[in-house]
């Protein structure tokens, strides 16, 4: 435990010091990594921890982003209020979509989350009066912190995001290894057995969905302040695919894996894309390689390498996770042929 604190604090101070040593270009990349790190962490609670593979997480990101953007434009620029509004919409959406989706398993769950997410996309795309339609939401004012202090430049936004990210990491770290976190893992491992032990697994799947969705909304809210702009393309299903890649390449079921995955994708999309147009090909190739050779993701590779240093390994991730996640799919596809 002591070692974790030391490493964490070191990392935190490095991040705080960063803007003094690197250009704004890199500060922005860090901010983006932190935001998508939160997004990936949120999906991991659903996919890596509870074993519910969803292709509809973009819906919550979009809900948070649009709600916060609209609140900032029409209501108030107070950063806390607007973010809470964003998370609230994501929360309500998660209740709705979760209720409907968690009744399904495997392939059907995947398709339902996809369908629901695309409905959200469609609503955003077509409700031009409110959301700006395909033109997106622009001219979003900078958030204000306490009354007059405006987070007007990217460095302020970076620091704010860093603080939020730190809080999220703290909280999720505890959640993943808490009794509730173990309930999620139990459901992923063997849902039927959990029911026989006395757990109302539907309820817990919904709780997992709620937490994941709300945090996804938080990521969206932070994004809209960072980017100043949000468009329907940020809610399209390929975004759901992208964040799923982040979780799987980074290492599902771990705390930092999703963040590493987010960093991987963001770096490819921003830095690498200035050298070559074909960054998607690189992501695709890496994804294929990881799926075949390193299903535990980067975090898995890393922990294999440094097992002695990392004493606390919350959830050893292996191929079993993938197999277990798809057992209901296999069963279902066996039934359906």
């Amino acid at each position, binding site marked *: 435990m002591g070692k974790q604190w030391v490493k964490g604090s070191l990392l935190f101070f490095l991040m705080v010091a960063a803007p003094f040593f690197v250009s704004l270009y890199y500060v922005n990349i860090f901010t983006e990594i932190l935001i998508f790190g939160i997004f990936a962490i949120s999906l991991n609670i659903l996919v890596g921890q509870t074993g519910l593979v969803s292709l509809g997480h973009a819906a919550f990101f979009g809900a948070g982003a649009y709600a916060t953007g609209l609140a900032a434009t029409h209501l108030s620029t107070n950063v806390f209020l607007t973010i809470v509004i964003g998370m609230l919409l994501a929360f309500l959406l998660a209740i709705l979509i979760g209720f409907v989706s968690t009744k399904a398993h495997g392939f059907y769950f995947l398709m339902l989350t996809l369908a629901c997410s695309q409905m959200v996309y469609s609503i955003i795309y077509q409700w031009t009066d409110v959301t700006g339609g395909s033109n997106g939401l622009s001219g979003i004012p900078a958030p204000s912190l306490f009354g007059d202090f405006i987070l007007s430049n990217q460095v302020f936004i970076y620091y704010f995001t860093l603080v939020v990210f730190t809080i999220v990491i703290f*909280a999720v*770290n*505890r*959640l993943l*290894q*808490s*009794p*509730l*976190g*173990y*309930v999620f*893992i*139990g459901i992923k*491992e*063997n849902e*039927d*057995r*959990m*029911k*026989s*032990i*006395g*757990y*109302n*697994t539907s309820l817990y799947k919904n709780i997992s969905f709620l937490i994941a969705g709300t945090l996804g909304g938080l990521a969206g809210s932070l994004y809209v302040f960072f980017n100043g702009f949000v468009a329907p393309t940020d809610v399209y299903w390929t975004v759901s695919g992208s964040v799923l890649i982040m979780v799987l390449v980074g290492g599902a079921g771990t705390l930092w894996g999703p963040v590493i995955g987010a960093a991987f994708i963001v770096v490819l999309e921003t830095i690498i894309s200035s050298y070559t147009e074909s960054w998607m090909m690189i992501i695709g190739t890496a994804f294929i390689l990881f799926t075949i050779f390193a299903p535990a993701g980067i975090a898995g590779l890393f922990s294999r390498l440094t097992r002695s240093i990392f004493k606390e390994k919350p959830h050893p991730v*292996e191929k*079993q*996770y993938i197999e*277990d996640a798809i057992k209901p799919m296999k069963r279902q596809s066996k039934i359906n042929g």
Partner: protein
Amino acid sequence: MTTILSIQHLSKHFGGLKVIEDITLDVSVGERVGLIGPNGAGKTTFFNMIAGDLNPTSGSISYFEQDITKVPNYKRTENGIVRTFQKNNLMFGLTVRENVLLVLQKMRNEHIQWWKKVTQRNYRALHEETETLLQEWNLEMYSDTKVQELSYGVQRQIEIVMAIAGKPKLLLLDEPTAGMSQVETDQIIALINKLPKEVTICMIEHDIDVLFGNMDRVIVLHSGKLIADGTPEAVRENEEVKEIYLGREEARYA
């Protein structure tokens, strides 16, 4: 004697296939009941319906005089109906300790808490209870091994210990000694006999020796129907039972 379980005209059909047909019986608190019958007689299906894992086609099930026919399986477990499975059905990717923790944290109602890690420091009582349980049933040495890495026999023990950890009032054991050596079987039986007298046990068994000497009562199922219900000795003498197990010719000479 208090009736713990009352089954009235229970039936289960899958389309045209009648798996369980019109079973009526009562079980009293503390009874040790053995359930036998040839393969395909419907024993596990019967258990599944009592546990709530399967819905009956018709009939009713009452538990302590409350109708539980429509109550979901997890709720039944919360109220004391605990089952084991014919095939080891554990959280294979987790350690033995983690499996037991999942049962105990539910029993202690600590399962909703999300803000503290499940470490010994934070949950001393929970971990102590787990340790005690594992020591009591001689599984201590496997505490931190993943279930999937353990032998079949040990997994079977864990299967039963998990059920016992759930402080059952009605314990449904589905072929607990399946695939075990004599030594292992004796261990399991000792385990079961250690349970308090108030615990009602219903056990599906193929091993006749296990039933005789350990069970007060034996129920025989055949093709979904209840064909015998009495003490082990009475059932052993039952003509119909002999016919089923030994065939019509042999029964005449048994």
